[in-house]
């Protein structure tokens, strides 16, 4: 199925959870990342039980933004 990860389309197998995707995508510093699924914050303790569906949009965000 197709989902969007940080704005880019990605094909993944069905039945994956947010926790699975963090591992599959080798997300850096997972302890520092904030996960948003379809614009809503996902609590860390729900990563393992939050299943991904077709057309989901998931963002992995960090708190460092900005610059001059």
């Amino acid at each position, binding site marked *: 199925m197709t989902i969007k990860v*940080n704005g880019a389309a990605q094909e993944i197998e069905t039945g994956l959870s947010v926790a699975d995707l963090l591992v599959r995508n080798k997300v850096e510093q997972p302890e520092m990342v904030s996960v948003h699924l379809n614009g809503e914050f996902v609590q860390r303790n729900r990563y393992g039980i939050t299943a991904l569906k077709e057309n989901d949009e998931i963002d992995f965000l*960090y708190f460092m933004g900005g610059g001059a």
Partner: protein
Amino acid sequence: MGFTTRAIHAPFLRKDPHGSLHMPIYESVSFEFETAEEIEEAFLGKRPRHMYTRISNPTVEHLEQKIKHISGALAVVAVSSGMAAIADTFLTVARQGDNVITTRYVFGNTYSLLEKTLGPWGLEVRYADLSRPDTIEPLINDRTRAIFFETITNPQLEVADIRALSAVARKHRLLLIADTTVTPLYFFSSRDYGVDIEVLSSTKLVSGGATTVGGIIIDNGTYDWGHNPKLQQEARRYGPFTLVTKLKREVFRNTGGCLSPHSAYLQSVGLETLALRADKSCENTTAIAEYLARNPKVKCVNYPGLEASPYHGVAKDIFGQRCGALLTFELSSKKECFSFLNKLKLIRRATNINDNKTLALHPSSTIFGEYPQELKRQMGVPDTLIRLSIGIEDVEDVIADIAQALEH
């Protein structure tokens, strides 16, 4: 693991390429990227990369991580001073027309920030007697955003009954913000007492004994940001990380109060000996307070560690034997106070607290000098008051200096 073990062995987020045991000082303004795509992703917050030191820096980040590791907090932001920590926090959680509840016994510069700087921009400050939590509830309305207090006020040395304040804050879904400068980290776990946000001047105990100026904002992750109308949109998107995201991607970034990497390095090293210095300075303070209480030239001594203090019970309950390293005492007049200060030979006449050196100050003519006499009375800062910030010297030398300055 104990406090000091956690402070000394806090892990790095990334392994140092040279195996350095201390996080090196990354004294660089900017950090480069391999590709345009990478820098775009970093700017959008989609990659954990440092870009520009005003916003984040590896050495500053290590200090933040170390405090997070020690405290078990959700998130930590290091800033340029304790005042920057307070200012950034209020600018994040409140907007024009909102109000916060505090006491007139707040630190003089904090009072000035609230009344003179943020007041004209539309933040209303409501003053309660925080030693009587029943005085808080009548002040709360639908624009109240937070209760702000200092764990031990400076220089009145009033000790907050934190559990009672927390109960009021919880009942009304208000944010509870504690300034823990006088009792940081090692002294108690603010989260266990219901504090949502801790702000502190790391200039004092954290820095290793007044080596550098800095401030810390600690988010315990206990507040539901959906209760704050200003932050409801962010709360849906960032959940418990609302405050830190709003700070890092807006308020802290835009106001520019960043901590220098050099200061972060010294404060990170300072954390490792905080407990040792805190124990010694508190032990010294108790001994000096007991000496002053016996001296007939001293009208009264204020130190929560003394059984005679009205705050002894609550201080002991929260802080145990460590009631801070700040004490005050009164002489008969301002003239007597100045004479005492001028006769000191070892103790330094200087404004700061938790230096390794013992420091003496006349608060009424210095930190509170900008306020009229009547307001100073309301703020609990009489002309007859001397403040001592006790260091880690051999205590008999400090007592000898006080004795000779009181004798003549």
